[in-house]
């Protein structure tokens, strides 16, 4: 084992590897910062370059980029309430409100610390337990996924616990949007009115940008009308203060441990990526929190939970990809192609025949997360300056980025209109107090719940018992139902105690 590590470390003597990692991470900052440009898209654009590199640089580039992009996605979330990538959607509102209460850069430093730590946990689990977890994940069929998605969706209930009715409305709006387009199961066009562009359905990212960004831009514009051009923030914008990190590292140890483990495992399940990992960790964080009332209003704990989970999920997604050639998320789906182009076929043989290279790639995961600290720090320092830009200049700039971002997802002008439509919906919903996260969550999970429900029934000949027919499914269903009724039991118990 030690000799492999030694041999692998030798591969990093090649300065090209380190240079490629740093360039990829700088590119990752740009991708993460720009709404609409996702880590997946960035990796897809980089892969053709990897054909002409050595395997370690080519694959290391992907690993380095995704770690930074997922973190950098939190930066516009904190600054402008716009998630830079879908993986930041869960914590966007908390991170933003917290940034307004404290200082944005302080929140981002905490975010960076937990992103890095989460990334390292995910990497370590990938390195030491890949085959074990892949074996377990390979037991998940549509039935298990159904329960997992239901569990994810019940996070919407938790998010909107103050006013469940409004959360329910949000979920229904999200579901309705998710049904538009060709359905996954029967290939039947729904609500398309014969327009070919509508067949692909509501693209999630333009909808998300519209929902989060447009209402915020409207708010910002109101301030401009009132001639408040410069944002008033309590503390210095670029002030470097690490006291919050020290405090939160001590306070949220268990939140972090739970979220990063959960994130890694959810990431390792094919089809559920870092975004869903963040949602589940956030929801679970609220459920188990001592101060659940802070969630949705600027809870640091919520930010820690989600951001640890999404970065941990990245390492997790490589587990089934490397062990079975089944991608854990959309990034590793592309990474498999890059591996194959290097003549590295994923599967158990990869671990036996290329042990040195695999060890070197594992080391890259750790290096990428360590570099993230520096690159992330620079990104925070640089982007915090954006807040000093007068609002009347900033708003049009953000607006242009939103339009370009929405367009670039599918190179489709139709998606820009989707963004505007959801912008209007977002403005109305925030006026009525409907939590926007529930809409976003339902748009992500709607197609998954439908697909897993319908195909499970198809397999069983329309027998509903199929959902309780497999051991892991039964376990998951008990967990889901238990998580629904647990709070009311606890409440009852409290009351009984009080009576005594």
């Amino acid at each position, binding site marked *: 084992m030690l000799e492999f590590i030694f041999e692998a470390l030798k591969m990093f003597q090649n300065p090209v590897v380190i240079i490629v990692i740093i360039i990829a991470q700088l590119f990752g900052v740009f991708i993460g910062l720009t709404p609409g440009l996702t880590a997946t898209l960035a990796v897809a654009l980089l892969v*053709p370059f990897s054909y002409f590199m050595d395997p370690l640089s080519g694959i290391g580039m992907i690993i380095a980029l995704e770690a930074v992009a997922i973190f950098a996605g939190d930066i516009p979330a904190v600054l402008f309430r716009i998630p830079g990538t879908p993986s930041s959607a869960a914590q966007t509102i908390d991170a933003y409100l917290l940034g307004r209460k404290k200082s944005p850069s302080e929140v981002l430093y905490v975010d960076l610390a937990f992103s890095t730590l989460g990334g390292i946990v995910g990497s370590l689990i990938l390195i030491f337990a890949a085959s074990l977890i892949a074996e377990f994940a390979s037991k998940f069929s549509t039935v298990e996924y159904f329960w997992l998605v239901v569990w994810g969706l019940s996070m919407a209930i938790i998010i909107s616990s103050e006013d469940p009715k409004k959360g329910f409305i949000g979920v229904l709006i999200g579901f309705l949007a998710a049904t538009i387009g060709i359905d996954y199961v029967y290939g039947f066009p729904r609500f398309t009115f014969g327009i070919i562009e509508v067949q692909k359905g509501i693209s999630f990212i333009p909808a998300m940008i519209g929902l989060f960004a447009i209402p915020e831009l409207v708010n910002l514009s109101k301030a401009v009308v009132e001639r408040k051009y410069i944002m008033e923030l309590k503390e210095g914008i670029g002030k470097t203060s690490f006291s919050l990190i020290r405090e939160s590292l001590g306070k949220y140890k268990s939140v972090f441990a739970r979220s990063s483990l959960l994130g890694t495992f959810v990431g390792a399940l094919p089809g559920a990526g870092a975004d869903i990992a963040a949602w589940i960790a956030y929801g679970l964080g609220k459920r188990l929190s001592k101060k659940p009332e802070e969630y949705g209003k600027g809870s640091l704990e919520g930010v820690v939970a989600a951001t640890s989970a999404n970065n941990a999920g990245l390492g997790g997604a490589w587990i089934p990809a490397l062990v079975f050639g089944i991608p854990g998320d959309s990034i590793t789906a592309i990474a498999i192609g890059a591996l194959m182009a290097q003549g590295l076929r994923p599967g158990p043989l990869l671990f036996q025949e290329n042990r040195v290279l695999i060890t070197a790639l594992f080391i890259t995961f750790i290096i990428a997360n360590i570099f993230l600290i520096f690159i992330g720090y620079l990104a925070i320092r640089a982007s915090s300056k954006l807040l000093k830009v007068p609002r009347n200049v900033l708003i049009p700039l953000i607006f242009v980025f939103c339009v370009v971002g929405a367009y670039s997802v*599918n*190179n489709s002008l139709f998606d820009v209109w989707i963004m505007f439509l959801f912008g209007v919906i977002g403005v109305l919903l925030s006026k009525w107090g409907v939590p926007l996260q529930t809409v976003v969550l339902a748009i992500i999970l709607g197609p998954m719940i439908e697909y897993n429900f319908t195909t499970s029934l198809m397999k069983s000949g329309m027998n509903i018992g199929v959902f309780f027919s497999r051991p892991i499914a039964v376990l998951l269903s008990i967990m889901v139902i238990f998580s629904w009724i647990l709070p009311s039991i606890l409440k009852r118990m409290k009351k009984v105690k009080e009576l005594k």
Partner: protein
Amino acid sequence: MKNNEKKIFVFLTVTVVSLMLLSSFSGCVSQEAQPQQPEYPTKPITLICPWAAGGGTDRTSRMIATLLEQELGVPVNVINKVGGGGTIGHSAAATASPDGYTIGVITFELSTFKHLGVADVSYEDFEPICQYNFDPAAVIVRADAPWNSLQELLDYIKAHPGELKASGTARGGVWDLARIGLLNAAGIPPDALPWIPSTGAAPALQELIAGGIDVTTCSLPEAGPLIDAGKVKALAVMAPERNPAYPDVPTLREAGIDWDGMGAWRGLAAPKGTPDYVIETIASAMEKIVQSDEWKDFMEKNGFGMEWKGPEEFAKFLENDYQVVGELIKSAGYA
């Protein structure tokens, strides 16, 4: 003197006029010899890929773009027009301006759209340029499944219709039609092995090893890592010849089925009405590319099957594929 001047004047006039005539005539001649052969290409070419960035089709598109750039000397940009099961990108390529500066990657799904009624676009909306890839379907089952040959599996399906389930792609997708073709050839009704739609080969393989379904009809390279891992086994490849990377997997005919099989193909095509010189230029550039070591190496490493058909051959192939696919879709009751 006056006379002389006149002579010179006439001489000059005649010379000038005849020179003008000649030059204009020669202009005519040169135009007639090459009537519509402007210089091509003179500006960047857009290559529309109907599938998502990072997928198999996209990877081949980007490799083609890089190599075409070297051959043609102008930038070739890949644009992913994604969604609707490939309808968006195929329609975008078909309706683009036929000036030779927008071409499309077309894939097997083009043969299905009209039959399935999802989009009004077919091979007839394109000028075929070339086919560069073919990946035949295969029959994949779990490694611990009791069947060790295709015949055993088919016998079981015949004896227990509807009990086993298959998956691999969307309903009416390429691996679904391969299943229908196989069952037709074996004289078994399609609903004896029902199809569970999936979003692709990877989720179907996950479903297979998780025990949710029993058969997958995706290509051999897609199942490669799981074959290595000892999780699944291949009973047959639906092609006239064995795959050299999987020499132990018999063809359909070797397994006793009277059918050549089918699979997914990829090619290039231009919008209908694109001039011939464009088709010829790109086709001859592609012919050079597919013979290059760079291309061969790329295709081999990625596990993509290499296949070459020029414009005319590809046109015939597309027409035939469209009909075969139509019949399979009809026999499955999808149309």
